[in-house]
């Protein structure tokens, strides 16, 4: 093992020796204390982030996971990081409510010698995290846009509606940007855009208004499958089915709809809810000076960007087992 938190510099011994086998990684090492702080779990995907993180913590006998109260307040989250630093935890896994706002606190933790694993929302400084694991919000929008382009093939007066999540979050902006970029590649653009709040009721409320504002729609992208339950309820209540819909995040509910084949929901773009669990696993390896199994580089990589596949009736069976219950 190497020193935790050092850069992935030169290795002294042969690459093959450095390689951790899966068994070595699985074996219990020194017990490490990992602090986890994320946004308020007021939403299915974030709930899944939380529960998978806790499950990951439980699955390692040598990890003592400390979970702070989920919050959407940068001030409070900073305080949680400070508490972790004070307590001298061995690593911190941080899904910041706002990446930029938590950068300073994370940098201080790093300066105090505690490796920080940044999940999902990126810090504004490279010195604030030892490792970063990201979903790809922009890519998610691109995937959804590309799918719609393909489905509508050349219908350039198509009416496309977008039901965004919480509009004040940078991640919503990234998704919308990716979506718009992909659409413009095939000559389309968003005709009607509304923003909900990642809740069922919010999805229902804005969708019923949207459907009234747009009497003919060809395609809808809904950013989030949690609010999607409400979106679908509104669509059913209005008795509309002249369009198809693409979801986002990849909840089990959404996948069951896709599987059923008679829903307007045709596809969804996965946004992995296992990021924080991955973060915990990485934090453990970093704290114990190990690397990921099957990698030759002797330390955990700096940056991991997770795959955001599109799920359709074709591949839903493969993915449904990994889906989260929203």
């Amino acid at each position, binding site marked *: 093992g190497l020193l935790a938190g050092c850069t992935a510099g030169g290795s002294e011994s042969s690459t093959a020796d450095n390689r951790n086998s899966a068994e070595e990684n699985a074996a219990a090492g020194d017990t490490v204390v990992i602090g986890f702080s994320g946004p308020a779990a007021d939403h299915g995907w974030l709930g899944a982030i939380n529960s998978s993180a806790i499950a990951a913590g439980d699955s390692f006998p040598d990890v003592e996971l400390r979970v702070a109260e989920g919050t959407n307040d940068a001030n409070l989250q900073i305080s949680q990081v400070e508490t972790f630093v004070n307590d001298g935890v061995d690593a911190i896994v941080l899904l910041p409510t706002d990446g930029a706002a938590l950068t300073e606190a994370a940098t201080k933790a790093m300066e105090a010698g505690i490796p920080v694993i940044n999940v999902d929302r990126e810090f504004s400084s490279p010195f604030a995290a030892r490792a970063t694991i990201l979903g790809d919000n922009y890519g998610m929008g691109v995937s959804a846009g590309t799918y719609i382009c393909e489905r509508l093939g050349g219908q350039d007066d198509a009416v496309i509606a977008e039901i965004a999540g919480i*509009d004040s979050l940078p991640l919503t902006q990234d998704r919308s940007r990716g979506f718009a970029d992909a659409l413009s590649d095939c000559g389309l653009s968003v005709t009607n855009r509304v923003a909900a709040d990642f*809740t069922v*009721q919010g999805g229902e409320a804005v969708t019923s208004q949207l459907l009234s504002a747009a009497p003919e729609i060809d395609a809808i992208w809904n950013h989030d499958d949690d609010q999607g339950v409400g979106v*679908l309820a509104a669509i059913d209540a209005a008795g509309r089915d002249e369009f198809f819909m693409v979801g986002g995040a990849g909840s089990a509910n959404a996948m069951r709809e896709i599987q059923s084949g008679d829903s307007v929901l045709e596809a969804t773009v996965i946004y992995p809810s296992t990021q924080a669990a991955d973060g915990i696993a990485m934090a453990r390896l970093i704290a114990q000076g190990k690397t990921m199994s099957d990698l030759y580089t002797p330390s955990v990589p700096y940056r991991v960007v997770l795959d955001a596949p599109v799920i359709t009736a074709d591949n839903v069976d493969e993915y449904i087992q990994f889906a989260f219950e929203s």
Partner: protein
Amino acid sequence: MSESKSQTISPAESGPEEPQPAPARRFTARSLLSGAVGRNLGLILALAALFAVGAITAGDRFTNIDNILVIIRLASIIGVISVGMTFVIIGGGIDLSVGSVMGLASVVATLSAIQAAAENSTWLVMVFTALAVGLAAGFLNGFVIAYGKVVAFMATLAMLVAARGLAEILANRQTQVIRISEFIDFMNSDLLGIDMLIWIFVIVAVAGWILLNRTTFGRRTVAIGGNREAARLAGIAVRRHTMYLYALAGLTAGIAAVMILGRTTAGTSTHGTLYELDAIAAVVVGGTLLVGGRGTITGTVFGVLIFATLTNVFTQNNLSTSVQAVAKGVIIVIAVLLQQRFAGQGAKSD
């Protein structure tokens, strides 16, 4: 000697003056009418102005009857909660917990439905569970406030936090989808072309109006909010009545839970988030004084409709949420200004 109470009036009374009921009732009716219109003229104007804007900017898409129903449907759930809130506020209190009680009720109700899934009567069980949870939470609020003498703001804030937490624990943060088609069909059915959701709202509003204006319960509510000490001295059981007010608000939250279950086909702990603010805003825009003692159900209904119409007009015009927010702020102020100007002495002279 206490039995004789309902004769109340002492003997001398009926003799000399024999009041004629007829002219009096005429006077009453007229003053009520002019009062009701006068008091709500500002609100009517604000709503009319919004409709004009909607009609001009979105034309037929806005004015067609289906869209009007969309607006009223949107208003109906907050509307039901706002009726309960009106009572609490007129009674001199505040209830911050209605939104999260509604969330809790929706979760418990769907869980109960899943438990009782085998039975035939499932969906009535679900409905009663939702109402019961709302009522119980309301009673608890009322008890803590009336008998524990905890300030209403804090007591219901505590309930807000706790009910949301409890809902999350029970639901395990998952959205429970209802698969009882009878219920969904019933809630999505319509009567005379009007949705069930809207009917419920109308019934609750009318019941609320009668309760406030035509019953002892309503008059006592006004008395307690207007002058608590005078109410007590008049022999009203102030604490018990206060408890009932919160129970009533809880009940409306339970009804709202049933409505949102029908509308979204799912129960989740996030249902009702921030509804308390919307409801309070609607009640206050409707001219009910936050300090209690004065307010109307009609005003509240207007308040709810104004906010729902505003949202619809924005959506029809495809405005960004940020621009909507700025416009909404300005419109709120204008609506309140209009309402206060036309309500005449409503605002205390300064």
